[in-house]
């Protein structure tokens, strides 16, 4: 009960802070619209106008991933700059519990991207928003956002130890878009990249979302994205515990 209260309180706290950040909102709404526009033109010029919803969902997920990646990485770095990192670490609950709601809020904000992309596609490009399995679509989207939030938590834990881990964030944006099939099908990629794709929650997430929207098996990919999310939670519990101890030994919690 107390853990749920901490998660809810942290989630609301971070949503309030993110909602007052015009930079964060702008990148969550404007950037995906730009991606979507490029994707629509690419698909149209390829003579594949029937798959515009496919492109819109992929572009929306690109925004969800970017929001998770930069938000989760940024939580720790930003808290370090603000001097609140030591307060979070010095609080009684385990660090995973302290930062889980922050990471979930970042992914949740990513839903703006999905909404903005779909609205843009409908209004400007006339993309029909007919979903094959509407409820399964909502479920797949929720599971994907949750799973990405948990994946973001693993990334966040590395920032506890490494002050300049944002280099890692910058490196991970485009490769994950490509390896997860958000821009184009992973069937176009070399065979050896398959295991990498399978290990990524966004790969299974977009599969479940697209199947729910356009038709296809949803439960298999949905189970995979959920399992990978739970695995990420397990890893983050271990990494937070390990990195917290190392950070206390190496004195990397504070800015100086």
């Amino acid at each position, binding site marked *: 009960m*107390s853990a749920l*209260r*901490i998660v809810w*309180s*942290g989630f609301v*706290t971070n949503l*309030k*802070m993110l909602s*007052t*950040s015009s930079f964060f909102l702008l990148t969550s709404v404007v950037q995906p619209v730009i991606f979507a526009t490029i994707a629509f033109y690419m698909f149209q010029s390829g003579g594949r106008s029937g798959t515009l919803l496919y492109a819109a969902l992929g572009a929306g997920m690109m925004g969800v991933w970017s929001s998770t990646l930069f938000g989760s990485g940024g939580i720790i770095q930003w808290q370090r700059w*603000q*001097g*609140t990192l*030591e*307060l*979070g*670490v*010095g*609080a*009684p*609950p*385990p660090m995973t519990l*302290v930062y889980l709601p922050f990471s979930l809020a970042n992914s949740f904000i990513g839903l703006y991207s999905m909404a903005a992309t779909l609205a843009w596609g409908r209004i400007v490009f006339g993309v029909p928003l007919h979903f094959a399995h509407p409820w399964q679509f909502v479920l797949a989207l929720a599971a994907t956002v949750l799973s990405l939030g948990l994946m973001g938590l693993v990334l966040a834990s590395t920032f506890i130890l490494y002050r300049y881990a944002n280099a890692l964030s910058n490196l991970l944006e485009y490769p994950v878009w490509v390896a997860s099939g958000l821009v184009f099908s992973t069937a176009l990629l070399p065979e050896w990249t398959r295991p990498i794709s399978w290990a990524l929650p966004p790969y299974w997430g977009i599969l479940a979302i697209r199947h729910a929207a356009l038709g296809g098996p949803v439960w298999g990919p949905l189970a995979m994205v959920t399992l990978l999310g739970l695995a990420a939670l397990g890893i983050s519990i271990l990494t937070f515990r390990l990195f917290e*101890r190392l950070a*206390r*030994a*190496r*004195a990397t*919690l*504070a800015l100086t």
Partner: protein
Amino acid sequence: MAGGGAVIEARELRRTYQTSTGVVRRKRLEVEAVRGISFSVREGELFGLLGPNGAGKTTTIKMLITLLLPTSGEARVLGLDVVEHAREVRKRIGYVFGGDRGLYERLSARDNLRYFAELYGVSGKAQRARIDEVFELVGLKGREQERVEGYSRGMRQRLHIARGILHDPQVVFLDEPTIGVDPVGARELRQTIADLIAAGKTVLLTTHYMFEADALCDRIAVIARGQIVGEGTPDELKAGVAEGQITEIEVFGVDDAILARLRGVESVTAVTVEERDQKQLVIVQSTGERELTAPLLAQLDGVEVGRVSSREPTLEDAYVALVEAA
């Protein structure tokens, strides 16, 4: 007032930091921030850690509040080892760092406290009442709905204290809580600290301000270069230099060579300089065995000299003598 058994204990506490220099040929360096310090704080006591910048005060506090692991030695808070039982220690302590940082700027003061109340297990009906109570205690009642980014430094410091005592901890660590706060605000904060003691808390305070330590602390440890160089009540520390004498000389332009000559005068124990606009105040501590005015003025030959006076030693003089001797 100081009462029961030891609530905070540090034994041979030591902390070194690893750092490096150079880009191509990196050279690893070890900096010893705290070099084997031992002290204990009794229940209900306000204990002061005094020392210059870089003396090791904040490092010591951070080890005690579980944010840093000691390189060696042992520390206990309320009988709990700060390394082995970090989580249990965290539940029972509150801490406040001085300065502007350490608050969620875009949230209101109330939202800040609401969040930390959940982290510290103050939930349900008790939460609202407790938050109102601490706002009242630190004098922020009526301003709690405002965003922190619009707060003055004094208001932030009060909010820091409110956050630190929100969960009603038994032990409170205050690291330079009045730094940068205007005199009126600092006086009010000192009253808040005195109220904590009156409420039965044990407080460990670090400060640069001698009058603050003199007014508030039951006992003081002076720390310099990572070691404790003096410990006792403010009166005991003053008594350490009470047999001596303080001579203050106003001068206009004094350099290091002249200060070295002053230090060389027989029975002089310490010489410090305070900048006062166009002039400087040279403070000379001596054993008091002989009249020093004439020999000191002889060393200031060629320097324009203003007022010369003698006075009784203060806690600041005791502090300076201890730090200079370290």
